[in-house]
């Protein structure tokens, strides 16, 4: 093991979370390496310091809580898979529900069906996206053998023509497009630039990919008659919904109106 590999395992070593075999390898390296040994010592010191934090004491607010519980009816709506009622209302309501229902959404764990690396990689993508959409694209592209594509090449690799090549909404232009071999499927991803300086990533992929967004609060709404998952990611929104036989996921919308404008461009009206 080299220092880089060992340093990545130091927390797990400290916390006793490594298998016996790996722990022995890491410990052996640490014993003979002053840098790694020093890093482990600092981590230990941090743990020790954490135990010195004062313990805040909660006041007893049961009476107020009990009163509020008595004044509000328990939630009786049928919960969907995400613990959130499907809505047949306007998108403005959905934005409010992200705040109101986000907690409920977290009550049920999202089950990851793909590799741990997938969840981690997409989390990295989402964090990077806030700083630089192109850098975020590079993160995924590097990890999943991304190939830069034109419409023709994308169609050849995917056996379908991605929805964005049907056209882009006014005020948006195509910066780059990749086909990536993600664990879930061979996935299309494009980076769009909007005239106001914002960036949007558009994914077209097979099936729902709940694990992409991890624990982030989400709600499910109907957009153009299609069930659409709306996710709050710090300062921006993501949305995912069926688009023909596949799914379309957009990342980076500034608000619900932008989500609606983009999805409406590629997804035909469906249902009442």
């Amino acid at each position, binding site marked *: 093991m080299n220092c880089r590999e060992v*340093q*990545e*395992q*130091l*927390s*797990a070593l400290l*916390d006793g*979370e490594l298998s016996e075999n790996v722990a022995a390898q890491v410990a052996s390296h640490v014993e003979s390496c002053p840098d790694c040994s020093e890093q482990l*010592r*600092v*981590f230990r*010191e*941090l*743990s020790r*310091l*954490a*135990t*010195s*934090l*004062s*313990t*805040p*004491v*909660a*006041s*007893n*607010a*049961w009476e*107020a*809580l*009990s009163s*509020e*519980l008595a004044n*509000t009816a*328990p*939630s009786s709506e049928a*919960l969907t898979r995400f*613990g959130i009622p499907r809505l047949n209302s306007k998108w403005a309501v959905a934005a409010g529900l992200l*705040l109101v229902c*986000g*907690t*409920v*959404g*977290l*009550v*049920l*764990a*999202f089950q*990851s069906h793909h590799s*741990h*690396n997938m*969840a*981690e990689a997409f*989390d990295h993508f989402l964090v990077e996206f806030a700083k630089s959409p192109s850098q975020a694209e590079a993160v995924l592209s590097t990890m999943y053998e991304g190939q830069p594509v034109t419409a023709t090449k994308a169609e050849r690799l995917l056996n379908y023509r991605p929805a964005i090549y049907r056209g882009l909404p006014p005020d948006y232009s195509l910066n780059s497009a990749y086909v990536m071999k993600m664990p879930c499927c061979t996935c299309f991803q494009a980076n769009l630039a909007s005239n106001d300086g914002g960036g949007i990533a558009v994914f077209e992929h097979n099936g729902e990919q709940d694990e992409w967004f*991890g*624990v982030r*609060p989400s709600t499910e709404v109907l957009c153009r008659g299609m069930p659409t998952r709306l996710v*709050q990611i*710090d*300062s921006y929104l993501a949305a995912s919904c069926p688009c023909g036989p596949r799914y379309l996921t957009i990342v980076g919308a500034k608000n619900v109106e932008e989500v609606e404008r983009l999805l409406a461009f590629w997804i035909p009206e469906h249902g009442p």
Partner: protein
Amino acid sequence: MWPNEHPNLSETAQSSALDSGWPPAEEVIRTAQGGDRQGQRRLYDACRERVYRLAYRMIGPDDAADVSQQTFLQVFRNITQFAGQSRFETWLFRIVLNECFQLRRRRARRPAYSLCVDVMDHEPGQERSTDASDLLEMALLQLDPDLRSIFLLREIEHLGYEAIGEALGIPAGTVASRLNRARRELQGILIALGWEP
């Protein structure tokens, strides 16, 4: 199946007399699930210190009480949804953290509390007179909230990686890498504040 043993919690359970009913027994949870107000009270008493402590460290003292209250409202309104497939503690912490993140978004870009300002204004040498645990409090508030939550669940709540993953909805492998990152970033912030490890 209800977990009966929580080896990663035992250390903390022994360390605090304030919440000796922690983690709450299955019978306490079931009674609260039945809507019995006394049962809810028992569950509240078993959990309130833990909930408040996590909220306090995540969001600061000004909002910790409100977050705690909102957490318990959510807990009791949705407790019938808790099926025992995960540990109750991780289910509970997940709600606490979500309330914290929601509040943070509602108050976007407002400092958690005034210590942040103090940190930015500190003079070289002043930090020497600051207790190391005070520095850690300041540093935690500068740490990315996602990383802060992982650090707190590990170092304050003493959850194992699997339990942290349950609470945050991420794989244990991701917990390991993020915790490593949290510790490194915290180390950097602390050193910038004058900490000498």
